[in-house]
């Protein structure tokens, strides 16, 4: 029997049901230094965050999945291509948005995107047409005819995104796409990325230190520390509620309710509302309640009733990606020690 092909024919469309990135025991070494140590993960179609501290191995993984690094061991399949054997063909079907300032000097936004398309194998006419379309898509209108060197940081990020998209990439690698942007620019790029994933059905790998960005865009995350993958899974699973910990908001006799919770040793913390940022519960503090093993949630409602407070919100407390990241890195540091 003939063995199955290890890489994809570039002419064949990629089947979206397959995981878009599959790393198996992938190891990258630079001399004696091991940058990635037997990394294995399967990334389904969609958006995935790649998280790790500086020097954790994120860049090495990005280079590996772009087919730029020859691994010391293991295999990497990206968008159906063998990243080790078919790096060139692979890079025609993925897009990369670098973290650092990167533009083609002396070229307008339009010419930059056209050249990016042609370097990815688009015929000249097609590259030109798609460059106009994708620049319109990212919101660069008349500015597309100006030299990129004169663009604002936000506009440069948009051109980089347009260059990553122009050749119909199935998978985007985004390295700190909101780095240095003002809040408005950041929101704009995040909205674009969300649309690219959800409306245009592209996959992306987002490497970012801004964990809120990862939570805003991605459904999955991979945490890497000292070259090892220390956690992976859906964001939903990773941030799932801390056992028996609840976020409670009440109205009425809130002070008395808070006192009763404290007396019952249920209150862990009180998070004061930020002015103007919590319109629905602007006058309510968030009471962080932790129940003991075997304790029912009714006790909280009884305490509220006993002092005349009304509970308006009662929900399991979720961890943020920041919590997950810090907990995982600390735990891994303990293991290594």
């Amino acid at each position, binding site marked *: 029997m003939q063995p199955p092909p290890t890489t994809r024919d570039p002419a064949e469309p990629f089947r979206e049901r397959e995981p878009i990135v599959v790393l198996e025991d992938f190891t990258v070494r630079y001399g004696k230094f091991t940058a990635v140590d037997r990394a294995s993960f399967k990334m389904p179609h969609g958006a995935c965050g790649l998280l790790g501290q500086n020097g954790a191995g994120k860049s090495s993984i990005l280079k590996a999945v772009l087919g730029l690094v020859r691994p010391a061991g293991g295999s990497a399949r990206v968008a159906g291509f063998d990243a080790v054997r078919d790096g060139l063909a692979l890079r025609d079907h993925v897009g990369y948005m670098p973290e650092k300032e990167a533009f083609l000097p002396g070229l307008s936004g339009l010419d930059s995107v056209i050249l990016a398309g042609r370097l990815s194998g688009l015929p000249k006419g097609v590259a030109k047409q798609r460059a106009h379309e994708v620049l319109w*898509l990212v919101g660069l209108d008349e500015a597309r005819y100006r030299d990129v060197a004169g663009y604002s940081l936000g506009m440069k990020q948009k051109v980089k995104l347009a260059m990553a998209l122009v050749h119909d990439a199935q998978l985007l690698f985004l390295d700190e796409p909101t780095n240095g942007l003002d809040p408005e620019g950041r929101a704009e790029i995040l909205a674009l990325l969300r649309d690219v994933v959800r409306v245009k059905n592209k996959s992306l790998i987002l490497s970012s230190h801004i964990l809120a960005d990862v939570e805003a865009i991605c459904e999955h995350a991979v945490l890497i520390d000292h070259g090892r993958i220390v956690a992976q899974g859906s964001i939903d699973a990773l941030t799932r509620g801390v056992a028996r910990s609840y976020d409670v908001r009440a109205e009425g006799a809130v002070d008395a309710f808070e006192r009763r919770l404290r007396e019952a040793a249920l209150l862990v913390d009180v998070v004061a509302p930020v002015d103007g940022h919590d319109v629905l519960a602007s006058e309510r503090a968030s009471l962080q309640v932790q129940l003991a093993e075997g304790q029912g949630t009714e006790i909280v409602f009884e305490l509220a009733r006993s002092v005349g407070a009304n509970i308006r919100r009662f929900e399991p407390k979720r961890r943020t990606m920041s919590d997950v990241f810090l907990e995982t890195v600390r735990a891994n540091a303990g293991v290594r020690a």
Partner: protein
Amino acid sequence: MTTIHDFGLRGYDGGRVGVVDRVLAITTTELRRVFSKRLFLMFFFAALAPAIIAFVFVWIRFIVIEGSGQLVGFGNGMNRMGGDAGPVGRSIFGVDFFFDILRGGSTALTLIYSGVVGAGIIARDRAAGALEIYFTRGIRPLAYFLGKLLAVWFLLLCQVLFGYLVVWIFAVSVAPTDSNYFATTWPFIPRLIAAQSFFCLTLAFWLVALSTSTDSVRFAVLRWIGVLAALRIIAGVLNRFLMTPETNLLSPHQVVKRIAQAIAGAEPSSMSLSSALVVWGILCVLALIWARRHLRPVEVVG
């Protein structure tokens, strides 16, 4: 806020072009970028000075003097200019006139011009972070290097060959039929094209290779012009003391010029051709190693 509409970001399932088209995309984009700069255009036309001088001499020789004879009686000097001899005693019927009209002066101009147009070609990309864009596309560093090399080669050819070819075509078209100008000159034109192409390609190769190691355009330009000028001066000084033409082997552009002279069949300098070939080979290998060492995607990306 930008929103996505059905227009834009369409799928593409057409074919992808090969490596040659991608290399040419880099070359043509580079040329368009260079020729769109007013400063470059001014410099470009200034660098065409030898060809313009050649044009003037052909014009005086074949139109003013042979034609209406307006300059007859203007003195011996003007008549000499209009004679067979060119500006520095070179016959406009010989290959040397088209190879280096100003006897080394053209080469000096070429070196400065090459430094300005080519020495910073990759340094500029490195400074702007463009290498990260190139190397994460479906091209190898070699294709990127070739794209830049072709652009610099073409720019150098514009300066050292195309201007002279225009002059030659002009001379052929205006020369009196009894001068046999075409019959005398056309046999060396293919060799001249080959020689100047070789000269420009070698210079372009060294320029682009050297340009890979820095992100400062100014440094790259000064390094190229400074190092070549210094080596030329050192070679000249040593030549005076040692009285041997082989000291010119220290000067890379003298080396490549010697080989080009041999290809063109021009009057050779006294340096040995075989020694020049050996030095040329060594310099090309060193340039290749230098470029490979500095154009590594793994160090550029991420």
